[in-house]
């Protein structure tokens, strides 16, 4: 399913533009995946599966959708991004480094003592991190608070939050969902990285999320579903969410470990780093893709 992009030019021009945008974003996503695998491999611990599954989404946000300025991380009118599934920090660090928030060399110090890149995002240590996350179910609520705060001051900035499907088992997600729906926070868009896996196995077997789209609708959100690895679909959905009169939920169907064949849909790589050999193999595969 591809939602056609809205462009004023004719169909041919639009196709051309779409092709360029796709290539641009896919190239960055490839580099981001390479960085993710290398930083977790060098760290010797971390969460590759969920970082790779959300890489395309983060690239679309930071390299296409969001208004932000790496030179001014505290710019008042910047759009905000909250990584509610904080264990996907490597994906966030990779896009922040590529955006220019800090030197890319920092990536190779992930999880080390004294590093600006903690195991889970720390807003005091890492430029570009809006709020510290890691304890699941809380980032979305913080994003709701940000959206309320921006609306109070008439600030046009938009708030984005990425949540996980395992994370959606936390009650905090639904408390936040209820408040956002009640407040009709149209300046808030959440994206669900729906890769279907969590530490103990398949989400549907551990604790089934059921008809997740209906659940969000019932909480007063507008819901879209996209292929979470199709950058144009993601971008179109993000554009569409701007027009909602209430908070938007984009359910992104993704593959855990996407881009590294032996990690794909492999629950073992939820929270396990690749060995040095596996890392080399994975990096080669990404380079050749």
């Amino acid at each position, binding site marked *: 399913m591809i939602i056609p992009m809205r462009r004023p030019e004719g169909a041919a021009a639009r196709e051309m533009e779409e092709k360029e945008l796709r290539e641009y974003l896919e190239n960055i996503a490839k580099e981001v995946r390479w960085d993710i695998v290398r930083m977790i491999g060098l760290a010797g611990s971390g969460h590759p599966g969920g970082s790779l599954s959300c890489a395309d989404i983060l690239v679309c946000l930071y390299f296409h959708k969001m208004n932000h300025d790496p030179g001014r991380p505290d710019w008042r009118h910047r759009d905000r991004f909250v990584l509610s599934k904080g264990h996907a920090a490597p994906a966030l660090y990779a896009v922040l480094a590529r955006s220019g928030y800090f030197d890319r060399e920092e990536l190779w110090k992930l999880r080390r003592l004294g590093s600006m890149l903690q195991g889970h995002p720390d807003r005091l240590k890492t430029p570009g991190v809006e709020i510290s996350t890691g304890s699941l179910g809380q980032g979305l609520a913080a994003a709701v*608070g940000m959206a309320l705060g*921006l609306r109070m001051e008439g600030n046009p900035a938009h708030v984005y939050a990425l949540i996980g499907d395992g994370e959606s088992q936390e009650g905090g997600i639904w408390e936040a969902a*209820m*408040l956002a729906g009640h407040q009709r926070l149209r300046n808030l868009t959440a994206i669900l990285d729906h890769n279907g896996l969590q530490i103990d196995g398949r989400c549907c077997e551990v604790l089934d999320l059921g008809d997740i789209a209906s659940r969000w609708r019932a909480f007063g959100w507008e819901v879209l579903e996209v292929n979470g690895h199709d950058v144009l679909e993601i971008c179109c959905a993000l554009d569409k969410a701007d027009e909602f009169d209430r908070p938007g939920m984009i359910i992104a169907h993704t593959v855990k470990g996407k881009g590294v064949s032996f990690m794909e849909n492999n629950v073992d790589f939820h929270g396990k780093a690749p060995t040095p050999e596996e890392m080399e193999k994975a990096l080669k595969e990404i380079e050749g893709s």
Partner: protein
Amino acid sequence: MRLQRETRNTRDGYAAALLELGEKDERIVVLDADLAKSTQTEKFKQRFPERFVDCGVAEQNLMATAAGLAATGKIVFASTFAVFATGRAYDQVRNNIAYSNLDVKICASHGGITVGEDGSSHQALEDITLMRAVPRMKVVVPADYYETREAVKAVAYIPGPAYVRMGRPKVPVLFDEGYRFEFGKARVMRGGRDVTVIACGYMLHQALDAAEELAREGIEAEVLNLHTVKPLDREGILESVSRTGRVVSCEEHSVLGGVGGAVAELLVEELPTPMRMIGIRDSFGTSGTAEELVEHFGLDAHHIAEVVRGFLA
């Protein structure tokens, strides 16, 4: 001497501070969790409805939302009962607010045993311990209307998170309109050379009454108002204790890790001193009137005096 004292709610002091702050500073935002009438944030809500958010009966979300609001540059006051603010929402307070070092001022009412009839589920007896243990968290337990009002105004502009504990009952007014709150500085309420009695919040007037009772017997108790439990006024406490050589801590709270715990941690390292702790001794609360419970758990002035007598004997 203190037979007929004026009594007022500490919560009303909180409400007065919020109105004053809200008037002067547009960054002040107040959040509650369906207890605005109890915590008295209702008054702010009526005056500044656009800067008030009721999060409903969802205290965890209250704290996480407060963190997000603070991240946009607001100074956020988040209120509910102490037991929910610190226990139920502990993880949000720790990770969203304190770890992110955000300007969220958790102003909780209904701290301690004097919640009364509602019983143990609503009586926070571990909240000071929990909040003390969180890095970056400041802990303030004001004793009366004026001290609450001034403490709230002060913590608004002390960067980072803070916890202000208020009670349910009306308490004697100990200070006046001109009271100057000194954050982090224990206040000598009366001088004495025989023993240092350290108290805060609801226990301060009980400690003062106990000192009065003891004075009639020739025992001179120095009473310290430890309104700021964290950061602890190390110099103030050591100075007093080095003169008296004995300490009694009084708290409307568990003796495990609370006010007495904070004092003991300091003394055991810096100035080992014989000490007695008055507080709830590792138990849950129970239903009863506030007065009955204060006596039942030995928090009243007579009991404090009794402990001091036994200590000095």
